[in-house]
Structures are given as structure tokens and as C-alpha cells.
């Protein structure tokens, strides 16, 4: 795998002349987790789509640059809130979806290793319909890892899970996504307080850095540093809305 670069997005985005965000600068440091927070509709998903190179409603003026000056094409993998597993494929087949889509020969051995790593060894031949929400999201994580890209963008991937499963998944993701440049879009201040090397609060006029707790991620749920960062973030976000 090639080295994970840092990414800097600079610019403005408008939909039909209505500004979504204006003149912001967002840097995702290399091989670190950046958690992007902000009120609904402020453009978090738009930023994610812009970096992914997907269509957005509206026009972006600005630049997206990488520290190694190479293009982002085929260097990012993506995980969404819903697992996006194909119901007619088994867990193993879903894990190698990228290769299947590109008509390449899938590396089944590696897929099996990765499925074991996310705890799905015994469920490889099952269809997604037979799995719980947490297991499905694990399968999606294995599919993300299978692509082995240096940059990973996560769009609230744990938000639909119950609290216990979510905490487990956060730990698993932090463990398996080290050495990658990760951006996690989240609504959950607790998640940001646990996972982030960098916390960014997005407003229409700036991507504001928020101080991270003084211990390294992934932080224990019940560490005083995590908890105080979580409550300060929450207080700030509620102030946003008022």
C-alpha cells in the first residue's frame, strides 16, 4: 500500500446561488483520523462527496490537493451509514465486491483473513439478510479494508447501531484503519471525542479546529478526558443551533 497523504480542501460551494459554505480550508492530516462535525445541512456530506469525486448538487469553486501531489482517483474507499451490502451475495462475495465490480479475480484468501479480523469467520457464506446490524456493518468494514486504499472516508457508519455495538465497532475501526488518512463525518460528539486526532466543526464560513482531548485515540468511553471533551462539544453544538 502506498503512503497515506494529507488532503487539503479549500473553497466554496453553492447550490443555485445559495452558499452552502464559503472560503473554508479543511486539512486532513496524513494517517490520522479527522472527525467532521456540524449541524445538519451545513455541507459535511458535500465535502465528503467532493473528496470522493462524486456528483454534488451545486457547484464547488476551489481546490482539493494532496501532500504527494498525486490525484485522488482510486485511492479512497468509502463507508456509508447504511451497509450497502448486496443482498444476493454472500458475506464473502460482498467483501470482494470491488474486484467483482471491476471484473478482476478476487483475492479470497485475503478476504477471509479480513473477515476473520472483523469477527465474521463463521458467517462468510451467509447472506446479509441473515446478519444483525452490527455484523452487517462489520462486513461493510471488511469490504472497505479489502480495497486497501490509503484514504478512507466514513459517513456516519456507526450511527444506526446500538450503543454497545457502536462502541465495539469504533474500536475495531480504529484498530484496522491505522496508517490511513481517515475522515469521519459524525453527528455524535462522543464519537468524535473518542476517535479523533483532529476535530473539525464545520460552519458556513469556516472549518474550525476544536481542541482534542490530551490522550491519544482511541480513547476509552469512560475516560474523564473523553467525557469532558464530549460534553464541551455538545454544549458548543447546541449553542450553534440556538
Amino acid at each position: 500500500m502506498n503512503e497515506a497523504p494529507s488532503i487539503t480542501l479549500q473553497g466554496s460551494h453553492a447550490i443555485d446561488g445559495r452558499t452552502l459554505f464559503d472560503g473554508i480550508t479543511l486539512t486532513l492530516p496524513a494517517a490520522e483520523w479527522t472527525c467532521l462535525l456540524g449541524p445538519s445541512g451545513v455541507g459535511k456530506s458535500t465535502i465528503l462527496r467532493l473528496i470522493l469525486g462524486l456528483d454534488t448538487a451545486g457547484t464547488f469553486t476551489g481546490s482539493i490537493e494532496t501532500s504527494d501531489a498525486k490525484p485522488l482517483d482510486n485511492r479512497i474507499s468509502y463507508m456509508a451509514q447504511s451497509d450497502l451490502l448486496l443482498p444476493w451475495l454472500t458475506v464473502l462475495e460482498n467483501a470482494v465486491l470491488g474486484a467483482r465490480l471491476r471484473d478482476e479475480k478476487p483475492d479470497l484468501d485475503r478476504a477471509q483473513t479480513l473477515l476473520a479480523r472483523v469477527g465474521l469467520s463463521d458467517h462468510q457464506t451467509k447472506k446479509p439478510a441473515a446478519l444483525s446490524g452490527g455484523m452487517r456493518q462489520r462486513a461493510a468494514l471488511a469490504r472497505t479494508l479489502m480495497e486497501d486504499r490509503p484514504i478512507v472516508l466514513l459517513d456516519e457508519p456507526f450511527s444506526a447501531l446500538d450503543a454497545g455495538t457502536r462502541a465495539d465497532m469504533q474500536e475495531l475501526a480504529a484498530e484496522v484503519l491505522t496508517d490511513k488518512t481517515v475522515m469521519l463525518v459524525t453527528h455524535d460528539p462522543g464519537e468524535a471525542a473518542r476517535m479523533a486526532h483532529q476535530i473539525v466543526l464545520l460552519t458556513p464560513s469556516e472549518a474550525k479546529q476544536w481542541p482534542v482531548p490530551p490522550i491519544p485515540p482511541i480513547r476509552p468511553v469512560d475516560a474523564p478526558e473523553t467525557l469532558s471533551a464530549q460534553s464541551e462539544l455538545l454544549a458548543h453544538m447546541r449553542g450553534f443551533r440556538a
Partner: protein
Amino acid sequence: MRWFYGVTAMMVGLVLWQAIVWITGVPKFILPSPLQVAEAAYTSRALIAEHAIVTITEVIIGLLIGTVLGAVTAIQLAGSQTLQRLMLPILVFTQAVPVFALAPILTLWFGYGMASKIVMAVLIIYFPVTSAFHDGLSRVDTGLIDLARTMGATKNQIMRRIRIPHALPSLATGMRLAAVYAPIGAVIGEWVGSSEGLGYLMLLASGRVKIDLMFASLITLAIITVILHTAVGILADRLSRYAQGVTA
């Protein structure tokens, strides 16, 4: 259990039919009794079978061609915005033309043989299949398409690996409709001009006031349609179950 109810309903229908014949004393050349129809079906079994095979052939070939054409059209339309904008209004407009009214023209163009009936069946099922499948192809979760794009899949690969399998339940819906419509198309074609098939046999029997034979042909046609619908239903069900990941 479903069989039980079906058979019971049919028995009740037959008893009612027989009762109406007895009570009203309606003459045989208007409404024959079920027994008379059964007798006619038995004595003319070779004749009915001969014509049934023609109709069945027309229907099955029409069904196959219509489904394939409809599916291919739907895929082409779903794959190209331009084609979709161009073709969809035309397709909808053609639906304003009653297909039955085309039967004489089709007979003129394709002759008295099977070809004109197959074309009729194809025309009648083409739109339901196209429209149902196209609908399914267009309703794929955009998240899936986004995911596939980030994985570097091309439009064709996304179509083949995601959109088509995803839309199989919709194709199945279209096929179920087609199984019912195809025999209608074939029989109308036979009425307008032919020398074989169950539709022809019905006209022939009617002309000779063999109403019992006419009813026997009609019932044979109904049975064929039910069997076809069931068979296509089983296939359609498999497609749907496959796409939804429900095994067995």
C-alpha cells in the same frame, strides 16, 4: 391448502353453471352444460390438442421474444439519459394505440401463419415488461452506485453487477403480467386471420354452432393461461428471492 380452496371454488362454479342450465332450460346452442362441454372436450381431444399446441407455441415464443426485447430496451433506456428522454415519450405514446386494432395490419404484413400472432403477443407484453424493469433499474439505491463508483467500476459494470440484479424483482413483476397478456395477444391474432390455433377453433366451432366445442376450447385456453402464469410465477419468485438474498 391453497389447492383445496381452488378446487372447491371450481366445483362451486361448475355446480352453479349446471344449475343455471337446468333451471333456465337454456338451449344447448346458447349455453351447454358442463357435462356436455366435458363430453365435447373428450370426443374432440385430438382436435383441441392439435390447435392448443399451435397457440401454446405462439404464446411461448411471443413471451420469450417480448421479455428479452423488453428487458434489453429497459437496460438501454436505463443506461442512457439521452435515449431515455427521447424514447420514453414515444413508448408511452405507442401505448395510446390499441394493440388489438393492429391485428388486421399485422395479419396483412406477417400473414396467416404463426408469425403475426407471435408479433401480436410480443407487442402486447413488450411495454409492461419494459416499463416494470426500467422502473426497477431506475430505483437502485444511489448509495450503492456511489460506492461502486468509488471502487472504480464503469457504468457498464455497475449496470451488470448492481442495477440488473437489483431490478430482477421488478422484471419478475413484468413477466407475471406478460404471462397473462401473451395468450390474449395470440388469440386475438388468431381471430383476425388464421387457419389454426384455439382462437381459430373457437370461431370455427361458433360458425358451426358447436357451442360445446367452443366452450371446451375456451376452457383449454384458460387452463393453459393458468399453467403458464403459475410456471412464470415460480420463475419470477426465484428471481425475486435471489435478488433479496432469501435462499430456498
